[in-house]
């Protein structure tokens, strides 16, 4: 009798499950923060926490400190980066040496770890693993590493020792390309990590201080190097490097004459960056750097995404920042939205 009852309930349950699975029902919103823009605010220097600002896709509403609102706790000091994967987002608090995993749509905390993080910077996902760049002591060039965590549980697995000052990283095929900005010193390398063997298989030399990197639709790796600043012992200027990811060779190197460009982004087939107070656009087949800017604005960071340019402004680094949103068609400022303190990164949910 017990078995028949069990079978009956199983049968009834299956009807419910099937009926709930009908495709024609409207999809429920996955959370308050779906379909929006997330700003990672570093937060104040010294004391206090980084925060996340949510902006709706139509720019009509925004909300500061969403992580704290949902989870009633702080993320940690200097929110360095945010990384999406499936339903999750990974947040890295640099000074607090903390990695937090949240549901990217509800922002509810799912896991957090402080293990094996030392000056953590950026993350990338490959084969269910989270690869996190770490500077270690920012002036020590020998203790830098990429830490590997289970992307689901954040359980630490292993580390790969790498060259000085690993910063942003990007996945293509079975490789992770790591830009070595050089911590609080200077470096000029891209490491190639084989995802399967978890080892550095190649090192590509680029310009000084490679700070951002993107991959275009033809699988070229583009690396923007800022050059050594004017307060370095010897100032150098920026370069934009185009790297063939089959041969691992720099195919074209574009030199900036006397400036320090930053923040390379790639959207709708074009490259964008900021340089000397302006935003520039360049086609991936262009043989020269663009001579004129498209928008006369610059900021703490500049990111292009699908028809818009987002310029963040940290103001005096001790008050609310803002993000200025320009329409890429009209080149006009469309919106200015207040953010948390030192808005560093813009992410599209």
């Amino acid at each position, binding site marked *: 009798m017990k078995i028949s009852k069990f079978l009956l309930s199983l049968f009834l349950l299956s009807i419910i499950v099937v009926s709930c699975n009908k495709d024609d029902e409207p999809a429920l919103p996955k959370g308050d923060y779906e379909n929006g823009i997330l700003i990672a605010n570093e937060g104040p220097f010294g*004391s206090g926490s980084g925060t996340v600002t949510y902006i709706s896709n139509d720019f009509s509403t925004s909300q500061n400190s969403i992580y704290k609102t949902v989870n009633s706790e*702080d993320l940690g*000091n200097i929110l360095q980066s945010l990384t999406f994967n499936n339903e999750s987002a990974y947040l890295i608090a640099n000074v*607090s040496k*903390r990695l937090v995993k949240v549901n990217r749509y509800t922002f509810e905390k799912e896991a957090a770890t402080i293990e094996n993080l030392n000056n953590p910077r950026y993350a990338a996902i490959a084969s269910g693993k989270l690869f996190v760049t770490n500077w270690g002591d920012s002036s020590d060039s020998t203790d830098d590493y990429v830490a590997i965590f289970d992307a689901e549980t954040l359980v630490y697995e292993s580390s790969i020792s790498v060259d000085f000052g690993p910063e942003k990283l990007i996945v293509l095929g079975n490789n992770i390309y790591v830009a070595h900005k050089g911590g609080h010193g200077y470096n000029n390398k891209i490491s190639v990590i084989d995802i399967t063997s978890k080892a550095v298989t190649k090192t590509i030399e680029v310009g000084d201080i490679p700070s951002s990197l993107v991959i275009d639709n033809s699988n070229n790796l583009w690396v923007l190097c800022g050059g050594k600043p004017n307060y370095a012992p010897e100032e150098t200027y920026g370069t934009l490097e185009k790297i063939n990811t089959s041969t691992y060779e720099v195919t074209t190197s574009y030199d900036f004459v006397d400036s320090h460009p930053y923040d390379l982004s790639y959207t709708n087939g074009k490259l964008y960056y900021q340089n000397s107070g302006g935003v520039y656009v360049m086609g991936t087949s262009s043989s020269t750097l663009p001579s004129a800017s498209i928008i006369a604005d610059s900021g703490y960071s500049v990111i292009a995404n699908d028809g818009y340019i987002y310029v963040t402004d940290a103001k*005096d680094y001790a008050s609310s920042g803002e993000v200025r949103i320009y329409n890429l068609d009209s080149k006009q400022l469309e919106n200015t939205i207040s953010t948390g303190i030192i808005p560093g990164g813009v992410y599209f949910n």
Partner: protein
Amino acid sequence: MIQFSRFLFFLFLFIGLNIYAQEAIIVSLDVVNLQTIKLNKHSKGYKILAINDSIIQHNSESFSSLLRFNSPIYIKEYGAGGTSSASFRGTSASNTAVIWNGININSINNGQTGFNSLNVSLFDNINIRSGGGSIEFGSGAIGGTIHLNDELRFGKYVKNQLVLSVGSFETYHNLYKFSFGSATTAIKVGLSYNESENNYKWLGYNLRNENGAYHNTDFSFSIAQKISKFSKISFNTSKYDGVRQFSGQLPNPLAAKEKYKDFSFRNLLNFNYQKNESSHTLKFAYLTQEYQYFADKDNTDFNFGKSKRFVLNYDFSYKISSNSSIESFSEVESTFGKTDQMLEKNRKQFSQSLIFNQRIENLGSFNAKVRKDFNSDYTMPFVFALGAEVKPARNTFVRFNGSKNYRVPSYNDLYWPSLGNENLIPESSLQGEIGVGYKNNNLKIDVGAFYIDAKDKIVWKPGADPERPGVWTPANLDEVVNKGLELVINYKKNIHKHSFNLNANYSYIISKDKNTKQLLPYIPKHLLNGTVGYSYKKISAFYQHLFNGEIFTTTDNLDDYSVPYFNVGNLGVNYNLLKTKATQLDLGIKINNLFNKPYQVLPSRPMPNRNLNLNINYKF
């Protein structure tokens, strides 16, 4: 120069009046160090808070804590025992000058004193003077000055004091003082050793203050010798050696790895000749300071800063009449400073000050002062100060003071590689204060209002140099107005064998950036602290309370990022076990954070939970 000739005119006008009363006898022959006496003499119209050695013992945990519970100064401390700086009357950290036996000891490298990088338990008394004092004490004396004094006395005595204390978080504070006096010689030796794991609970979290341990050793020696009826010579030396870890912040205290080492060595030779109307004092000081900063305590690499200073000072004082005197201070200083980031730099300075003191019988007294500095690096402002105290009726007083003061750029401001700005000029501020009060044998009340107008403030800001947007550089940028009201109450009362006392400070401060019209961050509008004491026969007790108002942490004064107000109280009870003419033995217990309330002075940095301290104080 016009101002100076006016001053002279003013001065001679008063001498000409030939005012008749006796000037108070301000020099006690038995006291060798005249710091406190001189400070009082030169501070007509200023407010001075005196902290004696028994109050110093009440907050033996740190200098930060001593000031937080006993003075009107707001102490910005990065977790108990961490980096600590002062905001006096809403001014910035480099605008409080710390004075050791009359010598300004603010760091050459950053222009300030770290209030957890020195130990004050060996000093005999500490005076805190509110208001500008650049005339006597030089750079940084804008909000006020803190005077750390060793006292020596001639006379026949031998005294020993031993204080041993043990407290929560494996905290030990120990000191031993020996002093000896004869008719012609006075000697004082002090030794203290403090250590703590300082791993207090972060209330409300399942976390502890992980990287807060400290230990330090302090040694001081002073000697004075009468050479003749008219002259004496004295020498003070002090050596401090401390190691501190810098605790972290929420939510991950384990992220903190920083460690700091401080060394200081101070020497002062003082020769005084006093005969008839004239007094000559020649001082020579040699001071060194060094810090070592370890980003990772487990690593041997560190950054450092080192400085050494030579100061030669000649002070001539002449009694013009029984109630007026004039003094001249001349000072030559040579300072060397370097860090791991910059080669040694040398700054030379000569300064000349004139001070005129006048007492007017049955009315009051005043000081008028001027100073001009000549510096090898930049032009120094001409500064002046006036202070007066009038007694309009019995037990009442009205006081005024006004002064111009300055803060010179620090070596970091000037020479930090590629970022420093050699074109900086000293900050300067004009300030005024008026107070009224009542004073009798049991009660003193002082209510005052002050106004400080500061310009050319040196601030590090991204893009301060328009040529280098986004790069943090220093510039003479900010203009700030600080204004406030202060109330001080001291009351004591004895009823039969019961004695009560109350000491309280309240301040209301508005510090505004003149350009943005916003309040400056990290300055509480309201600050109230006080101690109530009670004693009966062999038992005495005190309760200390602090109310610290809300502080903004952002320059746009956002409530979202403010640190809420807090109340914290400490209770101490002492029992006198033994008391004879020559010996005294007390046992004490102190409970800090009596109500076990969580509080933060700075965001994300919890302060200690309730903790206990047991102490023995033996004088023999």
